[in-house]
């Protein structure tokens, strides 16, 4: 599926984006949610540890991520691409505006629900049943959004606790949506490990279900076991573990169109931990 990468590169050329989309080794960046993170991002930049910032749109109008002077990848957790009610145009408009303002090479989106209606969010992204009916919904929503944005969309899965649906796994569902919609993929390493643990599958289950040439970005964060059960959760307050970084190192070698590796780390976690996590991630992603 080299054609997918060509599509993305085509968009980039027409936009004359400042995003340095050069290929291996992938660029290293981090997710940005608000201005309280600016100080640690600037330290990381001065140390040569960060190449880009991933902005989670929409952002507060009082925030100025442009102060960082870093290339931007646009992301959002606020569009429910699996919603049978479609996507809220008010949110999509702000995401599109931000992505174009910062010349993002693609827009990261979640294969998820956010509520039980046409607008709103009840908190963290929710998985639909992974079945053909919601695959069709996601394909339609993704195509419409790509057309509206005039940019490629890269699809991301959330963590799975209780799998339901007719697909063999959520990764098979993701692959079906991405192929049919013609989209890119963000492979969230932490969500993948969490889901495989929670569903009782082998640690690296499901990678062969994906068209790996569509993967342009990795998301990496800490994970933790539940206090009172055997289930694992996302833990953006923690740095990625050594075993997660080992997997990142392996993935970088087999993903032909990988361009970006993004650290997800909470704004209220220690800044020195952010710096060391970026350093460790860079080492893992560039290891030969």
């Amino acid at each position, binding site marked *: 599926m080299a054609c997918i990468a060509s599509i993305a590169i085509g968009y980039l050329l027409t936009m004359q984006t400042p995003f340095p989309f050069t290929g291996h080794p992938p660029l290293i960046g981090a997710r940005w949610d608000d201005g309280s993170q600016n100080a640690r991002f600037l330290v990381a930049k001065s140390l040569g540890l960060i190449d880009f910032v991933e902005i989670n749109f929409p952002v*507060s*109008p009082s925030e100025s991520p442009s102060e960082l002077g870093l290339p931007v990848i646009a992301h959002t957790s606020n569009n429910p691409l699996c919603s049978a009610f479609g996507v809220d*145009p008010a949110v999509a408009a702000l995401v599109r505006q931000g992505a174009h303002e910062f010349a993002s090479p693609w827009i990261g989106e979640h294969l998820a629900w956010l509520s039980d209606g046409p*607008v709103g969010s009840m908190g963290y992204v929710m998985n639909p*049943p992974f079945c053909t*009916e919601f695959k069709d919904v996601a394909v339609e929503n993704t195509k419409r959004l790509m057309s509206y944005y005039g940019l490629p969309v890269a699809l991301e899965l959330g963590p799975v606790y*209780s799998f*339901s649906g007719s697909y063999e796994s959520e990764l098979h569902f993701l692959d079906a949506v991405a192929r049919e919609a013609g989209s890119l993929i963000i492979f969230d390493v932490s969500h993948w490990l969490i889901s495989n643990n929670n569903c009782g599958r082998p640690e690296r289950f499901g990678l062969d279900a994906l068209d790996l040439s569509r993967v342009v970005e990795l998301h990496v964060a800490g994970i933790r076991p539940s206090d009172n059960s055997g289930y694992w959760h996302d833990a953006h307050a923690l740095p990625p573990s050594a075993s997660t970084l080992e997997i990142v190192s392996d993935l970088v070698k087999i993903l032909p169109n990988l361009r970006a590796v993004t650290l997800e780390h909470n704004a209220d976690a220690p800044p020195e931990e952010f710096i060391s996590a970026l350093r460790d991630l860079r080492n893992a992603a560039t290891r030969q």
Partner: protein
Amino acid sequence: MNTLATPFGESIRQIQRLYVRLLFCKQYRVRYASDPDRVLQKFGLTSAYRSFMPNVSTDSFLAEVNGRRIGVAREVFDQFRRTLPLLDPHITNVTSLAVSELFSDFLSSDYFFQAENSLPHPYGIGRGYENVSKFALWIKHSRHVSSSNGDPSLRRSLYTDFGSYLVLHSRHSSEVFFSRFSSGAYWNEIHDSPASLLILTPYFRLVRVSSESATEKVVAMGIVDLDTIDPLWSHLKQ
């Protein structure tokens, strides 16, 4: 015309509606566990749609439910630290809020599920994208905070916590609604008794003013009466 709307039928929307209810609403989970077909029928779905639904009794589903409750509880606890112990003295942190009956009631309410019962999000994306106003307006309504038989101490705590949220976002929100709180917010210390007002200033100080003409003066200064805040108000004033 909304070009981003999806042309899918009512059944698939009802699947989504019910599935999301099962993730948050304890009452629906209990009912679904004992009689799934009856609950499906309430949503216009036949028993054939059971295959789309989660097994609500499994540990994995309940672990997900627990995680989602904690996520919403974190958002609510951070804003209502003064108010929550008055509603339930056992609520002292995010976890105790998440497991409380009070929180179950909130997560089953129309205030949680229906975006039109909330205020606009400060980032300008409309209603239903935050849980602070949903919770405040639910408490205001369900505990009769803006009526003469409401608890004065709850009234003071809720309006201080919620007023702080409104005043804070008046500083930098792109949503016109919040600009109305740039001069602060006030309320009668005792409902229907304008002799003593509490004013939350733009600097988050709580000031008591006792004078016969106090209401007239604060209204003239553009300070908003929190008793008047409800979702309909935000709709009418935009």
